[in-house]
């Protein structure tokens, strides 16, 4: 079972001498990310509590722009940062702890693209519908302030 490990992370920027060293390096990275998340979560800087872009106004181009930049337009910057950091953490757990880095390209794609595709679809459709129901509650004739 003595197969070789790929020992560099950050596309070769950091190269570890042994697999054990790489594990501790990745732990350090994950801890730093968690620490950043916790500090941001406790202090919640006011500047990050609003979306970083305002919606585009106008015709079809604006609609397209709003869809493409929806993460920046409709999500608070802080939440966007949290989600991106989470995905970064997930990447290093899968790649280095679960040894995805050492598997063949086909196994990697098999696992990763399947989940990414299906989860994106699920998340899109549920959040979309949740927003719709919220709009029915708010703009419709549903009374709930009693």
């Amino acid at each position, binding site marked *: *079972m*003595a*197969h070789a490990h790929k020992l560099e992370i950050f596309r070769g920027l950091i190269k570890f001498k042994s*697999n*054990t060293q790489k*594990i*501790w390096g990745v*732990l350090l990275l*994950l*801890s730093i990310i*968690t620490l950043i*998340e*916790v500090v941001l*979560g*406790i202090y*919640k800087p006011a500047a990050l*509590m609003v979306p970083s872009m305002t919606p585009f106004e106008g015709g079809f181009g604006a609609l397209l722009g709003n869809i493409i930049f929806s993460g920046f337009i409709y999500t608070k910057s802080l*939440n966007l940062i*949290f*989600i991106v*950091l*989470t995905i970064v*953490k*997930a990447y290093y*757990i*899968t790649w*280095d*702890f*679960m*040894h995805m880095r050492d*598997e*063949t390209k*086909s*196994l990697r794609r*098999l*696992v990763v693209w*399947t*989940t990414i595709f*299906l*989860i994106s679809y*699920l*998340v899109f459709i*549920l*959040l979309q*519908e*949740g*927003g719709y*129901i*919220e709009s029915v*509650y*708010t703009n419709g004739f549903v*009374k*709930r*302030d*009693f």
Partner: protein
Amino acid sequence: MDSTVVSTGTNEKTWGGGNQPLKSSYGKMMMWFFIVSDALTFSGFLAAYGFSRFKFIDYWPIADEVFTHVPFLHGQELPMIYVAFMTFILIMSSVTMVLAVDAGHEMKKNKVIWYMFFTIIGGAIFVGSQAWEWATFIQGDYGAVQTKGGNILQFGTYKTIDGEEVFKRVAVEDFTTASHTDRVQHENKNGLWFVGESALPAFSVNDVLHGLESHPEILVRTQTINEEGEKTVLSRAASIDQIKNNGKRYVKGANLEVNEYGAPLFADFFFFITGFHGFHVFSGVVINIIIFFNVIIGTYERRKNYEMVEKVGLYWHFVDLVWVFVFTFFYLV
């Protein structure tokens, strides 16, 4: 795996069988496929949580105000600290697991035993912390009044801390005294055996109203999130009005039906998702213990490979991976 898999094919013929295009053993591949399907299950739950949250986007509880407790530090408000500790424990036990896998590759039995042992301890600490978190959440801290429409009204008062006016929560018990009541809890043994009811609330809404009227500094806070991202605090007159006209019952803590922090759905999803994850951690610990003893009695030493450790390692890391997402979507976002 050579001892269990018989290679029937020849190297020249692609369709002759015996090929391993993914260069991964059967067991490991099946573990990956299981992980994919389990990941979809969890993302289904988290997406459903997102759905409900989007549905009540302006009314959802703020996690920082719900999970503020740390064991042994009673009465202090420390949001996120304990859950950050839990996250760190789980990542740490992931590290010891991957070190066990690494030691297994080098056929170092004693190192595998020790790393597996630390992994199991980490998992046990995590499950215990989760149980404590549940207990604290179920018990609740300030209490609130539920309205006829199912909304939650909480209580608090403005205090000046460091020259700043801050709204501080006040426990209902601190300003309300229970009046004498003739209402007796209906139990199965005193009547129809199939009709019963759960324990009566400690206070009636009238008690809370009297308490509120006799304490002029206390105000009511609603579920509605205002433009500053904080819950709306009502004026004194509106506070009394709300309790008088809409108050239905006093609630403390959280269960599947009511939740003193806000929408009952929040508690439902909390119990369901962290419960399902906790169950995964628990079964992970059990599987780890089995493999741990297998390592001790030398099963893998005789088999001349430690792939079994690698397979449970995959599962264990997956549990950690899920927690990373639960942490983000329940506690941070």
